[in-house]
């Protein structure tokens, strides 16, 4: 046994030695980083990480972009694209490990903006915006910058695009026409009933209300954390945090959903369905819930291959998550934050740069038709970028199929948006992470079966509520309320 013990001691010593080696390495890295930032007249290279399927011609296009930006503001650009599904994880590892970068894409739904701003991944840009980013401030609706503040500071430049979010019911127009359905009175979940009934009776094998596991009925509440059952009622000046499952609106909606489920309007396995792409391909669905955008019906019809009409199911409202739909942040470890901001400013104000980044090189990837319109050339398959993720979309050239007034429609839509009660407030979960982990698990257990109407709310809401309580929801709500009260007091 003696020999045995010795081997532990040896291991321990080894591990110690190793960690000492490590800290030595860490130190070395630091010093080399500091010496690198010498001042020279050469254009500085900005490293830019953004989301999307990597495109073949990125380097080629960035070479052109660099020529342009080197002349204008003295920077060159190296863009790295990371595919959709890998982006959040890879970015997390890279920021946590201190990989050098300057600009990175962030949003409420990918590489979480608020979370990473709090953890210190991004540089606060309040001053930079004032000094190098005036163009951005001018171009954006003030709600963008106000809504994307985290603890009073801005950490990212939101892309100028649709600002509010509006829930709509989308309809498969073929079926609407076939049964001569009248959509004029459609808005609430309940108002769908006669239509769903007609479809159910006449179109067997068609999903009347196409619902998958991500579905949640619209209720006039603003969620504190997307997906957790605490919310503040729209229009409630006291900003009282409530359990969404205990609100009359949600209970009513879930009852209706359960009624629809029992009537067979909703897919039997809605609670575990991950997508509806198969019925969308075959057209065997009648209506579903979607988030609107100006001229969305055209886009939907074009992508599905048959006509779609939509009816509003909610007012257009500016939420935190809609404001943070697409942002560019400057990395906390950027060596050239001022230059990065200058670049972002140019990207959001200069149509030449913006369109180059978006569509590639003129004459290679696209050609211009008219003043602000363009047409993709065959080569564009090697440079097909997600427009919304790369800054101000309203500078981009119209596609030849787009209506002239596209961006006016966007502006009108943005102006129509009302502010959601929590716009600009971001909950700081660091004191209640334990409870959130537990509550999240309870939520996942009950959420989709309740929301899709699969289970009887009369039975399951009490069950879920008591489990939520046991998991510590009350504590989280109390914490949220106190943060919210403090925020409210500060607002005045």
């Amino acid at each position, binding site marked *: 046994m003696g020999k045995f013990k010795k081997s532990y001691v040896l291991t321990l010593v080894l591990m110690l030695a190793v960690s000492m080696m490590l800290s030595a390495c860490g130190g070395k890295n*630091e010093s080399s980083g500091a010496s690198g930032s010498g001042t020279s007249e050469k254009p500085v290279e900005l490293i830019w990480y953004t989301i999307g399927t990597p495109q073949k011609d990125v380097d080629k296009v960035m070479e052109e972009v660099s020529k342009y930006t080197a002349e204008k503001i003295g920077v060159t650009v190296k863009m790295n694209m990371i595919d959709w599904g890998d982006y959040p994880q890879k970015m*997390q590892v890279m920021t*946590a490990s201190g990989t050098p970068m300057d600009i990175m894409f962030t949003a409420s739904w990918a590489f979480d903006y608020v979370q990473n701003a709090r*953890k210190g991944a991004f540089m606060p840009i309040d001053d930079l915006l004032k000094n190098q980013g005036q163009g951005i401030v001018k171009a954006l609706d003030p709600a963008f910058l106000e809504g994307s503040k985290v603890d009073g500071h801005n950490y990212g430049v939101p892309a100028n695009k649709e600002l509010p979010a509006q829930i709509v019911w989308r309809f498969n127009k073929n079926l609407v026409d076939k049964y001569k359905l009248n959509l004029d009175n459609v808005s609430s979940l309940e108002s769908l009933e006669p239509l769903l009934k007609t479809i159910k009776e006449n179109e067997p094998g068609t999903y009347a209300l196409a619902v998958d596991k991500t579905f949640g009925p619209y209720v006039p509440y603003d969620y504190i954390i997307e997906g957790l059952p605490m919310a503040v009622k729209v229009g409630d000046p006291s900003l009282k945090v409530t359990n969404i499952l205990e609100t009359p609106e949600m209970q009513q909606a879930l009852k209706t959903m359960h009624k629809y489920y029992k009537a067979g309007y909703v897919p039997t396995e809605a609670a575990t369905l991950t997508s509806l792409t198969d019925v969308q391909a075959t057209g065997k669905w009648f209506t579903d819930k979607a988030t609107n955008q100006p001229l969305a019906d055209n886009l939907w019809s074009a992508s599905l291959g048959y006509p779609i009409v939509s009816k509003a199911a909610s007012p257009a409202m500016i939420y935190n998550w809609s404001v943070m739909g697409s942002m560019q942040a400057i990395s906390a470890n950027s060596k050239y934050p001022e230059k990065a901001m200058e670049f972002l400013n140019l990207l959001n104000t200069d149509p030449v740069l913006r369109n180059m980044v978006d569509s590639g090189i003129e004459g290679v990837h696209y050609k211009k038709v008219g003043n602000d319109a363009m047409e993709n050339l065959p080569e564009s398959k090697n440079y097909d970028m997600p427009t919304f993720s790369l800054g101000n979309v309203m500078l981009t050239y119209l596609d030849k199929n787009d209506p002239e007034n596209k961006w006016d429609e966007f502006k009108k839509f943005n102006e129509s948006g009302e502010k959601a009660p929590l716009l600009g407030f971001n909950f700081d979960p660091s004191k209640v992470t334990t409870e959130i*982990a537990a509550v999240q698990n309870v939520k996942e257990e009950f959420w989709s079966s309740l929301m899709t109407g699969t289970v009887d709310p009369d039975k399951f809401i009490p069950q879920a509520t008591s489990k939520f309580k046991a998991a510590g929801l009350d504590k989280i709500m109390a914490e949220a309320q106190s943060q919210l009260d403090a925020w409210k007091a500060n607002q005045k």
Partner: protein
Amino acid sequence: MKRIGEFFRDLNKNRVLLLMVLPTTIWFLFFSYLPMAGMVIAFKEYRYSRDGFWASIVDSKWVGWQNFKFLFSTNDAYIITRNTLLYNVFFIIVGLVVAVLMAIVLSEIANKRLAKVYQTGMFLPYFLSWVIVGYFVFSFLSYDKGMVNHIASWFGADPTQWYTDKTYWPLIIVLVFLWKSIGYNSVVYLAAIMGIDKSLYEAAMIDGANKRQQIWNITIPMLKPLMTILTLLAIGRIFYADFGLFYQVPRDSGALYSVTNVIDTYVYRGLKSTGEIGMSTAAGLYQSVIGFVLVMTSNYIVRKFDKDNALF
């Protein structure tokens, strides 16, 4: 002084074998032991520092055992621990028995060519990712398009909603596990059977032992060291669950959580919105430490009875 001299004499005596372990030892230092320093994050509220990772670790606040609390704080803690443990115990035992049996079956089949075809076939599930396996299980168990409900309807039975009925899921999970892993696991035993000195069987035949006696008295005892080692190693991972098996295959259906939620899925779901590296590191550390304690205990017991087959 004398002891140091002795130490160097020993080193010298073992120098060739030490040279043999050297490359891999270096590898382990770089790829395993160096990164282990990161385990300290389990006790930190990890925040980024602009000076890189090590600075971040140093600057982050110590939070003691705070990051571990979410693993124990609720009623779910009992369920996930129970599920993880029970499934793994079952996997270890059934997995061992079936893998050894299958290896023996394959080694005894007279037509060797056919045996090879079987072996190759059994290996295929190993290549399918859990996502794809999830699709398959769904194509069997789907309510309206699934094969099982189709067949049931021929016999006049009512269709079952498999993804909300938890009665059968423990069985389904075990079956899917076996289906996916047996091919892989039996290969080791098959190779071990092939490595058994043939003269042992010849000697047994001369003594008039029949096939069953040969298997029982030669094959199984010869496989025992491997069975012991593999079981010990599996015990070390007894608090780890295969995420895909418990997440993708039941399609993350909430109604099944009481029989499918395991530590790994719980951690995944719980940290989705906060993304605290400290907490996920804490979970991993907890799983490892328990596994470590269990292996050391079982290894100790094995040493008592059968010194040669212990891990170390």
